[in-house]
């Protein structure tokens, strides 16, 4: 079970959290303007890196707030967590 540092509550066990998948995917401002392929890309295509991944977490059974994290998907080690809307200080391996 992961130990996750909620930016608002500190270290808490994973069972208090819900993972929301890849972070930093903004909902398009005008979805109607997108082609079907572009919309499918937005909906379905996700970074799946073997390495550092920027992902969303929600402290669902705590403060209820969403935040972002950088986690290494090979070691499962968290590099950092940071509030929604902020940018991480390190970079992710989001090519895959």
């Amino acid at each position: 079970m992961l130990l996750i540092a909620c930016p608002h509550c500190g270290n808490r066990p994973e069972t208090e959290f819900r993972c929301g998948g890849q972070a930093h995917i903004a909902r398009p401002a005008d979805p109607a303007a997108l082609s079907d392929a572009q919309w499918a890309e937005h909906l379905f295509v996700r970074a799946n890196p073997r390495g550092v991944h920027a992902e969303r977490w929600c402290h669902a059974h705590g403060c209820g707030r969403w935040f972002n994290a950088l986690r290494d998907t090979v070691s499962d080690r968290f590099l950092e967590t940071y509030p929604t809307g902020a940018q991480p200080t390190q970079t992710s391996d989001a090519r895959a």
Partner: protein
Amino acid sequence: MRRFSLSSLLSESLKGHRGWGRQWRDPQPKPAYDVVIVGGGGHGLATAYYLATVHGITNVAVVEKGWIGGGNTGRNTTIIRSNYLYDESAALYEHALKLWEGLSQELNYNVMFSQRGVLMLAHTLHDVQSFKRHIYANRLNGIDNEWLTKEQCKDFCPPLEIAGSLRYPVLGGALQRRAGTARHDAVAWGYARGANARGVDIIQNCAVTGIRRDAAGAAIGVETTRGFIKAGRIGVVAAGHTSTVMAMADLRMPLESYPLQALVSEPVKPVFPCVVMSNAVHAYISQSDKGELVIGAGTDQYTSYSQQGGLHITTHTLDAICELFPQFTRMRMLRSWGGIVDVTPDRSPIIGKTPVNNLFVNCGWGTGGFKATPGSGHVFAHTLATGEPHPINAPFTLDRFRTGRLIDEAAAAAVAH
């Protein structure tokens, strides 16, 4: 290939088994092949086997970064069934099930396919409706599946607790009698041996590090840790690592890789006659020929390549097992492990062409790929041989995510695979 038979086994027994040769060679990679398959799991090896046997294409290499069958092929709970709801899935898995039914003889390798029956338990009225929808659809598709009352469930699986005092009492179940289990490792080895005998090169400890493309963008070969290998066509069958391999061709896939855990108990004398699945409480259990209770747990909620998940996933599954089979609390967990499963947005596989010429992919099997192994290999071999999908894998395109023609069994039935 030295044929396996009772007489060859007995004659070898008298000679200290010194006459058995290698089940597959350990060749150096050739500079070029007609087809290179990336990934030496069951699906990749089956693809190579059917390329050779059905399509006569034997100038084939299977490149595997570790050891064949070392990924999800050897890490699953070996459940085989075909009672899927949608016509597309039903056709695919039934195609596989029919191949399973003759596979030991076909491969001359006992894969121990055991049609013990898979019983799926209904715990809510919603489950009952959903199961009946499946049963009726399966029957009209020519796939066996039948409704059992809870008493009939108990008869079929005596250890099952059907008391009303359960948190989610058993209301009945759907039974596919032709479904069952197989010996997972033997499937990989059997296909490898069969493919090898027909000239396929199985190259272990050879990681793909790049996909080389020509000026027009078409794939022409793979860079590996053992050098460049030219390929007429490339089939990527890399399960949880597919995203990483496809990124080498600058393709982004609708895939995420999750840890999936399973465990076995200590071996005991026969106590569990069939396979029981309960999606409502997340329990998947059977007993292996060796006597271990084989139990499937769920995926963790985050993507990971670690082949290791959290303890709470295991305990959650055992909660459900002990709720349904309370006498098993004194059994012991012997071994647990994890695999990396690649999951698509509709939890159905992608089998077919990619936007890159000569590059084909077979992925996204999520938690349910083992049961499809022969069928998957068979239709993917067709696709690689002809350049076009077999009618059975034609619906499982990458393009369906653009058009919206998803094949979402789980959404339709809240059924995990």
